């Protein structure tokens, strides 16, 4: 059993020295392509914690941060370098797919990297500062067209990102053109929420999972609505959905991991075999549900289909909301 992979590794080493080195690598690193505190960070932490619980005593997974265009730079590096970053998985979300679908990461199709697994579905929410004048979504929506100039949306990512999409859907529902909506772009949802806590922006259409951690930590935030079909379980049970408040806006967000194009099948399989059981333990599922994630695990061809379907859906939505065409060269 041990000889075959080694032999395969040697054979591969003769043909693809880079791949050979990758094949020998252990999974050591989870890359969150944003600044700490956002959804990517959370994904990595969930994976790290699950692995630590599942294999106590093993070397803990390190989480490293590579902010830059909400994953754009990281995706660019994974897609273009065959040089496998040894033993690294990268966190992605629906936002990554949305950006890819719009070509916002460059001329990519989504098939440049390998989608490893999805560990759950997150949902969007609408958060304001705890001392903001709006206590319900309706109040905010009524104020929005009147004070567009003074209500700035913080977003992880610029125009076209998923935070922007959520904000644009809200603005449109409030009767304000998404073009007239004020936006401040940040490097990830974590930064946007910190800016909200510091009252540098007024609203963030963020994600449930990342806000949960901040609320735990006592940050001065107020969630007006979750953008899910029904109320979410656990601590989110008392937060009404947007739909309940008369605005049918839903925003599910896939959360998962991908690896670079240079990582061979062999290694992908090995990592899946390592990660899927670890994420299936009741403790790990509970940890995700605690944050408000629907803890469904998807991988393999099913995940690839899901990703393709999501990207099609996002393309349609982007057309629908009237996103400004991307400048040439992006």
């Amino acid at each position, binding site marked *: 059993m041990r000889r075959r992979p080694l032999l395969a590794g040697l054979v591969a080493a003769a043909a693809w020295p880079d791949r050979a080195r990758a094949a020998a690598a252990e999974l050591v690193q989870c890359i969150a392509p944003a600044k700490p505190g956002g959804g990517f960070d959370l994904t990595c932490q969930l994976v790290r914690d699950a692995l630590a619980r599942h294999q106590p005593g093993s070397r803990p997974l390190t989480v490293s941060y590579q902010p830059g265009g909400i994953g754009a730079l990281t995706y*660019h590096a994974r897609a273009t370098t065959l040089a496998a970053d040894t033993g690294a998985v990268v966190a992605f979300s629906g936002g990554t797919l949305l950006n890819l679908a719009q070509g916002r990461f460059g001329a990519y199709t989504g098939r440049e990297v390998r989608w490893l697994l999805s560990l759950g579905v997150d949902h969007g929410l609408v958060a304001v500062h705890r001392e903001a004048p709006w206590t319900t979504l309706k109040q905010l929506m009524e104020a929005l067209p009147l004070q567009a100039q003074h209500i700035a949306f913080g977003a992880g990512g610029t125009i076209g990102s998923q935070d922007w999409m959520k904000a644009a859907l809200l603005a449109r529902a409030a009767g304000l053109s998404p073009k007239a909506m004020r936006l401040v772009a940040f490097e990830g949802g974590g930064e946007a929420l910190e800016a909200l806590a510091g009252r540098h922006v007024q609203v963030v259409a963020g994600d449930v999972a990342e806000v949960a951690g901040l609320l735990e930590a006592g940050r001065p935030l107020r969630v007006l609505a979750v953008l899910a079909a029904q109320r979410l379980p656990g601590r989110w049970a008392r937060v009404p959905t947007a739909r309940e408040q008369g605005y049918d806006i839903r925003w599910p967000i896939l959360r998962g991991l991908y690896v670079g194009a240079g990582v061979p099948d062999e290694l992908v399989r090995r990592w899946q075999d390592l990660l899927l059981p670890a994420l299936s333990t009741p403790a790990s599922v509970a940890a995700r549900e605690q944050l408000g994630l629907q803890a469904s695990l998807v991988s393999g061809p099913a995940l690839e289909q899901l990703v393709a379907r999501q990207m099609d859906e996002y393309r349609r939505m982007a057309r629908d909301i009237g996103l400004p065409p991307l400048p040439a060269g992006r």
Partner: protein
Amino acid sequence: MSWKHRPKLGLRSRLLLLLLPAMGLITACGLWLTRIDALAAANAAYDRSLLGAIKALEQNITIGAGGLAVELPYRLFEFFQLTASGAVYFRVATTDGLVEIGHPGLPAPPEALRAGEPVFYDASYFGESVRLGAYLHPLEAPLGPGASRALLIQVAEGTGSRERFSAAFVRGTALRDGLLLVLMVITVTAVASWALAPLRRLAADTAARRDDDLRPLDATGLPADLRPLVDTVNRQLDRTAALMQARERFVDDASHQLRTPLTTLRAQVDYARRESDPERVRAALEALSSELGHAVRATNQLLTLARSDTVMPQPEAFDLLELAREVAVSLLPQARAAQVDLGVDDPAVRMPLSARGDRTLLREALLNLAHNAIGHGRGGGIVTLQAAADARGWCLVVVDDGPGLDPAVAGRLGERFVKGRGGRGAGLGLAIARSVIERHAGRLRLEPREDGPGLRATLWWPRP
């Protein structure tokens, strides 16, 4: 707007009417320039704080683990927002647009940026007029293979505060300029009054003069600009005085010249009336006729002299020799009666000798000189008329072979009623010649002949 249609406007009003719009225009231009300067100054000052914000952002850019992060200096932005008293916007983006942080869609700089050189420009963001600073931050290493190597940092602020600053500045300047304009009007009015005072004094002095006061106007204390006017008026006064003098002289001349022959005629008529002898009556009538002839000639001379004194010469081109011949022909009867050989010195080649002057007056002058030569020359003598021209002028000459000048009157010849020895004339011939030639700016010269007895009278006048 022609000045001709505003004859009532004084110099001061004209000065103000011209100066005020000009000053207004200059002030307006000055204000406009001040506004530009103030905006430039405000921009320079406010741009510096924009650059400060840009630099703060630049220092907060971190590149690690293949990513890019910008720590947003919120505190600084808050201070900045306070000083800018308006909204502040910022944007940090890679030049390929993959990464964009801050306010999306901030207007791009109008020109290509060079690394490390900030560019400031005005633009509009969400309908708000903003001032932007843009700065290119070069990255030591590209963020990924084929990714951009530079970050564009933009900071924008509303232009409200800098416009308020320059508006206040312009308002202050407008106030100052308005005050200066008022001072200028007052000064111009005062200075114009002061400068025009000598003119008013001159007018008052002139108005107070007696009608027959022909003394020149007093030019002392008058501005240099008025001198030409006063000088012209004075010359006019001089001419008027000369004219008046000439008239008075004519009246004197006429009374003297006419009274004497009339008295003589009266005496001769009385004598003839008392005489019964027809022979004597006839002799008296002969004498009467002769005396009348003298009176007629004297009157003509008097009128010629008066004309020469008072009428401006009418210069024309004429032939000198032809004039001399004409004079000779007209005097032939007298010459024959006095048995004088009267002739014209003709050059060998007859050609016109063109001259310029008042022909009528010059003819009269030559006629009188020739007449004198016939009358005062030697009986049976020779009188010759000559004409000549040179580069400087022309001359007409009468030469006789008589006794020459009477020493008793030689110094006074040419004065009126001064007669040479045994003269039968009125003593006006030389006076006429002298008057005419002086009106031509020339000279009458009487000198003894070099080649024997006789007198040479020369009329010389210069070319104009």
